[in-house]
């Protein structure tokens, strides 16, 4: 009876963990979905790609200082250097993406997920190797970095352009004209609340029928946008396995940027080993899944004949 009770407790534990896992995955997905929703046009894609490039660059800047600090304490930082090279490969790949090319959004989603995994991996290793002073020095380095400041300005300009284009598109669809407001949005001289107020004022002159038609058109466009974003997210999942060859090519390019020949050879070896280990793990998981599918098939057949 005690054994049964123990098994029951384990089952309860698993059941309790499940909603938490679902909730975390759901939050990450909804963040990415929100980002993907705004990648409906060229400017939207440019913004998100530039923001991803900035986020990866920020982590590379922080990672470089962290490695210096670790090395200063006579600790081997090879594992961290490998992760940094992988992040560098992702940055090179993001930079190379043509926003107008098919599959740009899917690649964005996959690179974002891979960058998240690598950053987490780096953090876990570095956590035990850095002191509080080191962390403060790294944060200062990131805050003062001129490259990151430049990204910030470029992204801000693009966002203002995107907001102007987005509001203009809406104005066109519901028949509003307001060039002054559009110019203000492009120059960043207006808040979202002000834009909404202006639209409210402009639409008050509409008849109830016109208002209804405008609202239906806007909602339809919103739903279409949401469906398109979800489809891109699903496509991205299907393309994860296809990225192996591409990733390998970008890793080689990133490793080639290391100037010290002995360090380059060491990192390249470690990278090859990591890629090989990952490949073996994926193959193993695939085989286990196939075995489980095979076991499940006869049951399905019996089910279908009923």
């Amino acid at each position: 009876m005690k054994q049964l009770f123990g098994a029951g407790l384990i089952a309860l534990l698993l059941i309790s963990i499940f909603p938490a896992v679902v909730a975390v995955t759901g939050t990450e997905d909804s963040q990415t979905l929100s980002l993907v929703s705004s990648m409906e046009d060229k400017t939207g894609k440019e913004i998100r790609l530039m923001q991803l490039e900035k986020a990866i660059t920020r982590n590379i800047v922080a990672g470089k200082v962290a490695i210096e600090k670790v090395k200063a304490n006579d600790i081997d930082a090879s594992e961290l250097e490998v992760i940094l090279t992988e992040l560098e490969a992702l940055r090179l790949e993001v930079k190379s993406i043509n926003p107008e090319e098919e599959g740009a959004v899917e690649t964005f989603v996959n690179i974002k997920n891979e960058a998240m995994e690598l950053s987490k991996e780096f953090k876990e290793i570095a956590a035990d190797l850095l002191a509080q002073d080191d962390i403060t020095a790294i944060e200062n380095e990131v805050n003062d970095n001129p490259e990151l400041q430049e990204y910030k300005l470029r992204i801000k300009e693009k966002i203002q352009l995107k907001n102007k284009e987005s509001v203009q598109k809406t104005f066109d669809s519901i028949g509003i004209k307001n060039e002054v407001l559009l110019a203000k949005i492009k120059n960043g001289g207006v808040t979202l609340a002000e834009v909404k107020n202006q639209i409210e004022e402009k639409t008050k002159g509409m008849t109830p029928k016109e208002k209804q038609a405008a609202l239906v058109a806007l909602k339809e466009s919103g739903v279409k946008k949401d469906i398109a974003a979800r489809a891109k997210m699903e496509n991205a999942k299907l393309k994860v396995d296809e990225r192996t060859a591409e990733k390998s090519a970008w890793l080689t390019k990133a490793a080639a940027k290391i100037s010290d020949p002995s360090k380059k050879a060491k990192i390249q070896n470690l990278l090859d080993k990591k890629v090989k280990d990952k490949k073996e793990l994926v193959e193993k998981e695939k085989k286990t899944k196939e075995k489980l599918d095979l076991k499940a098939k006869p049951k399905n057949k019996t089910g279908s004949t009923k």
Partner: protein
Amino acid sequence: MKWTIVLVCLLVVSSALLVSGCTKTQIPSKGDQGTQTPANGDQVDSAKTGNDQATSSEIADNSVSGWVDENEEVEIGEMI
């Protein structure tokens, strides 16, 4: 027998927790349908035609759905 009753009770409680954890209870935010406060100029229209009628406020909210916040970032997590 005692253990079985305890186990069944625990299973019932955890099932209830599972259902409540997986069900999203969404609190309507400003901009969602059903939470609109019509602007002054819209009150006459709404009163005349019932709750189905679109308001300027609703149109304004839906007009800016593509607005990108300048402070929004692509989050990939910190390195340290």
